[in-house]
């Protein structure tokens, strides 16, 4: 667990050494006006979610450069480490919050007996076991869930009732565009997706729950879809 402490202290240092910080209220209010304006423009919460994610993506592909330059961290060994770095260094250095991470290794292919964290395989040496675990943590399908307890974007925000998800049991009726409701902080999903894509990981990032909607926690799941191969530009021989 020493690497965890390392990441924590790196994150703390980065936050403290950052000289250009923004007033939290200004940030929260700017984001709030942005969301309200989007809602007025699009009038469809699903579309607003999409737009927020797109905006986040554009931020993420640029933010990763800043992050890597300041933190000068090397490549992560596996996806589990990615989760740790994102939570303890990434979120900490930009938003001064540290979400809790829960890792979920990739589901094992059918028929195979994959290494599970609950049944210790005493026949393997510890190092081999760790390597096997690391492998499932790096396989596409691995994911981690970030639990945010204090979201600076959403301070003092109260969603209107129309923005909450509708619990329509039947299929979507005409004129019911609000199946999933508004994910207020969806820009964060885009940022994570964009940043991870720039380091060769294609991920699916979605919100699982949000305290603004009345859920108990605010959770984001980041799932690894695949590693992106370096593409040789056309024209090279």
């Amino acid at each position, binding site marked *: 667990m020493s690497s965890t402490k390392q990441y924590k202290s790196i994150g703390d240092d980065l936050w403290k050494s950052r000289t250009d910080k923004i007033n939290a*209220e200004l940030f*929260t*209010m700017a984001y*709030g*006006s942005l*969301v*309200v304006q989007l809602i007025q423009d699009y009038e469809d919460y699903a579309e607003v979610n999409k737009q927020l994610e797109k905006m986040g993506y554009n931020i993420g592909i640029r933010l990763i450069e800043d992050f890597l330059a300041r933190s000068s961290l090397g490549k992560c060994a596996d996806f589990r480490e990615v989760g740790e770095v994102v939570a303890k260094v990434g979120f900490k250095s930009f938003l001064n919050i540290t979400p809790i991470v829960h890792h979920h290794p990739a589901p094992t292919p059918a028929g195979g007996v994959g290494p599970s964290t609950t049944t210790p395989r005493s026949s393997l040496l510890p190092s081999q076991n760790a390597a096997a675990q690391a492998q499932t943590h790096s396989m596409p399908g691995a994911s981690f869930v970030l639990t945010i307890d204090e979201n600076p974007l959403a*301070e*003092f*925000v*109260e*969603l*209107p*009732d129309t*923005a909450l998800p509708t619990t329509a049991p039947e299929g979507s009726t005409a004129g019911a565009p609000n199946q999933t409701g508004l994910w207020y902080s969806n820009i964060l999903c885009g940022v994570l997706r964009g940043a991870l894509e720039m380091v060769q990981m294609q991920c699916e990032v979605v919100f699982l729950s949000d305290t603004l909607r009345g859920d108990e926690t605010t959770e984001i799941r980041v799932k690894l879809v695949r590693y992106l191969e370096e593409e040789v530009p056309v024209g090279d021989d």
Partner: protein
Amino acid sequence: MSGKGFKMRAVAYISPQNFPMLVKSFGTKESEELKYHYIAHTSLDVIEERINADPKATECFLGLLYVLEDVCVYGYITPTRVKIVLAMDQVDDFLKDSDVILLFKALHTAYHDTLCNPFLHQPLSQGLRTEDIAQMMGRGDKWKGLRRRLDRIAAAAEKHAIAAQ
């Protein structure tokens, strides 16, 4: 009424254009709510008096405005000219000004926190429209957040009073 009480009876928020934004009463029956609307309106006159008497004053707290039947009415004006009127149960020994100022700071903060919600439609600057009247009475959901915060403040004030005995 035993001992000191910080029993808040009602709070009224009045816009800079003198339109009541919200009149919230605590623990009263619907038939008695009208009394607090009346109190809010009559307080306006006294507030105008106090403001005009000393236009240079930067003090937010306006002090005890008047006493009516069994309630003491205190006034407060925010830098944005929003007026907060607080009606409290009358007690034998007068409440210290500093305590009332503390209460008003909490009420002001509650209002400010509610304003930070980006989904709050802007407080009325034009005339009082019919839809706003329902909101002012506390029937609608525009001020839901503010009403919730006010309930918490009232509960905390009462608990404080009991602890102080």
